[in-house]
C-alpha cells in the first residue's frame, strides 16, 4: 500500500519535471524566434560585462515583459519556469513528507525550500 503511494508520488514527480522542462523550452523557443526576427543588428557585445536591465532580473518585471510579448521577456520567462521546476519538486516533497507524517524531513525540505525562495526573491547585491 505504502509502496504504491510512493510509486505514484515518483510518477507525479517525474511528470512534473518533464512538463517544466518542456514548457520552459517552448517559451524560450517562441521568445527566441521573436527576438531573432526583431534583432537583425550586429551582435550584442558579450565581451564586456554590463548586466541586465531591471525589468529582466525581477520576477514581476519578467512577467510584465513577457505579457508585452517582448522576445527577451518571453525567453526570460522560460528560464524562470526552468528555475522554478526543481523548486516545485522540493515543494512537492514537503507535501509528500507531510503525507507520510515524517516531521524531520518536513523540516529538512522546508529549509531547502526557504533557501531557494531567498535565492530568487531575496535582495542580492
Amino acid at each position: 500500500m505504502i509502496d504504491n503511494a510512493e510509486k505514484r508520488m515518483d510518477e507525479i514527480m517525474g511528470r512534473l519535471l518533464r512538463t517544466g522542462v518542456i514548457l520552459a523550452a517552448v517559451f524560450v523557443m517562441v521568445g527566441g524566434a521573436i527576438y531573432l526576427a526583431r534583432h537583425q543588428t550586429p551582435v550584442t557585445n558579450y565581451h564586456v560585462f554590463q548586466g541586465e536591465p531591471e525589468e529582466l532580473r525581477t520576477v514581476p518585471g519578467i512577467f510584465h515583459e513577457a505579457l508585452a510579448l517582448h522576445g527577451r521577456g518571453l525567453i526570460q520567462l522560460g528560464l524562470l519556469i526552468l528555475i522554478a521546476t526543481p523548486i516545485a519538486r522540493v515543494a512537492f516533497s514537503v507535501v509528500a513528507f507531510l503525507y507520510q507524517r515524517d516531521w524531520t524531513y518536513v523540516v529538512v525540505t522546508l529549509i531547502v525550500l526557504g533557501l531557494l525562495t531567498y535565492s530568487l526573491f531575496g535582495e542580492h547585491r
Partner: protein
Amino acid sequence: MNTLEFTALVGLGALLAGFLGALTGLGGGVVVVPLLTVAFGVDIHYAIGAALVSVIATSSGAAAAYVREGYSNVRVGMFLEIATTIGALVGAALVLYLRVSAISIIFGVVLLYSAYASMTEHEHSSGNAGPDRIATWLRMDSTYPTPNGLESYHVRGVPQGFGLMFVAGVLSGLLGIGSGAVKVLAMDKAMKLPFKVSTTTSNFMIGVTAAAGAGVYLRRGYIDPGLAMPVMLGVLAGSLIGARVLARARVKVLRLVFSSVIAVLALEMIYNGLK
C-alpha cells in the same frame, strides 16, 4: 557577425557541449563555460549564468527518466541539499569578490580534476558497511533494485558527506556547473552509497543546487536571454542525443578522446587566467 549568425554558432557549440557532457558524464555546464569564454570571448559572468540554466535543464530532463527506476534516495538527497544550496548561495556571493582571472583558474583546475575523475575507474562501494548512528536517526538506510531483487544498504559518514556537499554547492554557485564529480565522490566514498544510488541521487540534487545559484544570478542580471536561449536549447538537445548514443554504443574510447579535449580546454582557461 549579426545576431542570427551568433545565435546559430553558439547554439551549435552548446549542442556539442551537451553531447560531450552526456557522453563523458561531466554534464553540459562544464563544457559550455570554457566554450563560451575561450571560443566566443564571452565574459565569464554571462557564461556562468547561461551554463547554470542549462545545468537545470539537463538535470531535470534526466531526472524525469530516473525517478521511475527507484534508485535515488530522496532522504539522503534532501538532507544534503541543505548543504549544497547554502554552498551555492555562498559561491554566488564569492563571485562578487573574486577577479575574473581567479575564477578562470579555479574553473580550469576543477575541470581538470573532473576530466581525470571521469577517466579513472574507481572501486564502487558495496554498501555492506554496518549501520551508522546519525544515518539511522535520519532514517537514511534504504533499498535499491538489483537483478536479485531489492537489496538493502546502510548509509555512513553523514557529516563528511555533508561537508563535501557544501564544497560541491560552492563550486556550483561560483562556476555554474553541476559539480557532479564532487557529489558522487561524497556519496560514493564518504557515505558508502551503492554506485547506482549515488549517481541518480546526485543528478536529483544537481537541479536543485543549480536553481539556488541561478536565482541569485538572475536577480543580479548575469543571465542574458539572448545568450542563454541558444545555450539552454543547444545543451538540452545535445544531452538528449548524447544519452541515446550512450545507451547504445560502447563509448570507452570516445570518452577518453573527449576527456582529453576537455583537459586541453581546462589548461587554456588556466593559461588565460594566469596571463
